[in-house]
């Protein structure tokens, strides 16, 4: 197992370097002026040159990249052009909020997906299967920003049950675990959960059907094992795959959904990215993409290791 983990960690190193290079280059190769957030359209050349030098954008790209990587390795992702605040603090605050949202959505998505998937798998062809499948298809097919808007219209605008925007009555910095604060999480979490719920449902449904048709299930039943015992075996066989699917989905959710976070003004990484793009805040954009990419890479690593620990066949392969 240790050898497997070491091998997987070594594989991560070139990926991380590539990610850093790509996210640095992508934002630099985009057209437009990197100082557009602070440089007015009628700025003189002298002023533009002065600010370009102050932000280090006058240096050659390789030098800028080298400095950026060196600083990043020391925990310094630079300073946001738009706000003047350290990028790391901006990103970590947003990451905290996105993790909160992603975990809530994962909990909802995984629970509902597993339940619907097992039900559909056990009752293939029956009405309950058709209903679960319809819900799953809707979950992955309906544009989630649209679903978010519909939920807001119903639960905020019409019923006035839940808040439409924000992360808490006083912002996310005074977060408390009570209904006053949790209610802000309900609608964005439900919206975010729609896709993973649909995917997990479909995956578990297919797996359940497949497992139930296998000989060992017949054997278990022939041995007189009760149906709850059989169910435990089905669950144990389906769980690693469902977990891998959920892990990938969690990775996507941690990337933050720009649309969902914008619809709900949820101050996570999606909204931060939206803001960084809109303001063309290059240091913030690079820092956010880098942190999110690293999250994605390391989350995949964790999922692989977790899968391997559950299913010995994986590390053997």
């Amino acid at each position, binding site marked *: 197992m240790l050898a497997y983990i070491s091998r997987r960690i070594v594989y991560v190193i070139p990926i991380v370097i590539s990610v850093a290079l790509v996210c640095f280059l992508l934002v630099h190769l985009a057209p437009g*002026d990197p100082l557009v957030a602070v440089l007015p359209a009628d700025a*003189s050349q002298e002023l533009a040159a002065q600010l370009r030098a102050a932000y280090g954008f006058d240096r050659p790209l390789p030098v800028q990249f080298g400095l950026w990587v060196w600083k990043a390795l020391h925990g310094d992702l630079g300073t946001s052009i738009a706000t003047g605040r350290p990028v790391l603090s901006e990103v970590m605050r947003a990451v905290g909020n996105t993790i*909160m949202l992603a975990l809530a959505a994962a909990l909802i998505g995984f629970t509902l997906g597993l339940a619907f998937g097992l039900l559909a798998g056990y009752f293939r062809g029956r009405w309950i299967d058709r209903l679960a499948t319809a819900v799953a298809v809707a979950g992955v097919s309906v544009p989630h920003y649209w679903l978010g808007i519909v939920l807001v219209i119903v639960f905020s605008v019409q019923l006035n049950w839940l808040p*439409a925007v924000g992360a808490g009555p006083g912002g996310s910095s005074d977060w408390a675990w009570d209904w*006053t604060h949790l209610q802000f999480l309900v609608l964005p979490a439900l919206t975010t959960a729609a896709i993973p719920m649909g995917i997990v449902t479909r995956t578990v449904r297919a797996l359940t059907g497949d497992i139930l048709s296998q000989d060992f299930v017949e054997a278990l039943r022939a041995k007189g094992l009760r149906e709850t015992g059989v169910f435990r075996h089905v669950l144990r066989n389906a769980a690693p795959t469902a977990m891998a699917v959920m892990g990938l989905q969690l990775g996507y959710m941690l990337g933050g959904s720009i649309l969902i976070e914008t619809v709900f003004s949820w101050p996570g990484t999606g909204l931060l990215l939206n803001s960084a793009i809109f303001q*063309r805040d290059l240091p913030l954009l690079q820092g956010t993409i880098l942190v999110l990419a690293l999250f994605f890479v390391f989350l995949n690593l964790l999922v692989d290791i977790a899968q391997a620990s559950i299913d010995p066949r994986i590390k053997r392969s």
Partner: protein
Amino acid sequence: MFKQFKTFAHGCSFAALLTIAAAGAPGSAGAETVLRIAMTAADIPRTLGQPDQGFEGNRFTGLTMYDALTLWDLSSATKASTVIPGLATEWAVNADDKTKWTFKLRPGVTFHDGSPFNADAVVWNVDKVLRQDAPQYDASQVGVTASRMPTLKSARKIDDLTVELTTKEPDSFLPINLTNLFMASPAKWQKLFDAAQGADAKAKAAAAWDGFSRDASGTGPWKMARFVPRERLELVKNESYWDKARVPHVDRMVLLPVPEANARTAALLSGQVDWIEAPAPDAVAQIKQRGFVIQANEQPHVWPWQFSRVEGSPWNDIRVRKAANLCIDRDGMKDGLLGGLMAPATGTVEPGHPWRGNPTFQIKYDLKAGQALMKEAGFGPDKKLKVKVQTSASGSGQMLPLPMNEYLQQALSECYFDVQLDVIEWNTLFTNWRRGAKDPSANGANAINVTYAAMDPFFAMVRFLQSGMAPPVSNNWGYINNPKFDELVAKARQTFEPEARDRALAELHAASVDDADFLYVAHDVGPRALSPKIKNFVQPKSWFVDFSPVTLQ
């Protein structure tokens, strides 16, 4: 760093804590009156004295917490906003040297931290953006300030309540430009600087400004009470504001960045906020139906096509420029496409404004006259004139750029124009605007659609009409080179009596309308939707509003 990981840990601990979440009683605001506003900004505009995010920044974190030497009169909904005394009570240009101005400062004014406002504070604030060797110099504040006062060079203390400002050249626009220089407290900054950790003075200064942005101190009618970056800014009324008539009537104002129009609308309709900026146009009817109030008024803002006048441009023929201006049914655009949320433009400023003048060319919808001009210029149904305009799909002040440009495309085709749209990303368009029509980035376009603020003479006219403002200097994108304009700009700049200066500007404006230098289409109206419990709000003809008289019932 600890705070970052604390926030991070909050997120990570969520799954475990979710199960033990207990119901709690919501907080109560008691008798305190709270005005909650959803801004269009994606973030709280910078709070350290020189806001970013355009004039929305000045509106919410500039003019609330800070004052400038000169201010805008925001008390009337019918008259154009003009400059009035602020922290300076009077000013005059030196009779012998027109680059030197004397400003008399208002006595008895204190910053929110209790330190006095005086000539030293003015010099310190000028130096923060103009003197690179000043300890408080902050590059991040320069861009949003220096270009709005392009000729200001330095400040010098005469005595505690008198300061001398020097410009690079004689410039009568200075008092108007100074509305953009907000006075931050030097004493508060120095205290933060002294306490800051840092290897050198530059690092300490950066830390001091960062600290200042989280605990700001100006002289304005509102004081900073709570700041959650990217989420909310809470301001409380400054009971000891120097202008007793403008001490706020509401105890607390909460500013929330909600960049998405539908989200803002939902927040208003669900009662989460009392006031939203720029409601979604298609929700206006519903907003009104539910008893909310829509406020709108013509703003000093222009939604135009700026014509290229480089060699070979089809717009070099004045008949073509005039024809385009006559072919647009602006009222149709207003009532149909924009649901009433625009004012038809017949120039940079409209009748009633001191800089309007008396143009002889009347910009209106006259299809026959437009068609006749085009025929005279050699075009017709079988020989259409190809023109290309560069625009964006979104952007600050751009209103609804794509539908509006498609409307123009259709309207102009009736006057024998064949309009091609070159749609690019907003920030790229903004960059291209600086580069000019001759630059390859123009991509062959002979017009560009970038909206602009028209509050001060430089922003409204000079940067577009003076030949010396051609790229790379400023925004004369189309390389207009008209000696008459240059002469009128010089005249306006060197006329120091305000009324005479306005008359000179009116001459310049009339000349530019007569020359049809732009396709004038619309002015933004700064729409906002308010809860019916908000009273005494005046929406001036300005980008800015005065929150002081607002009451909540």
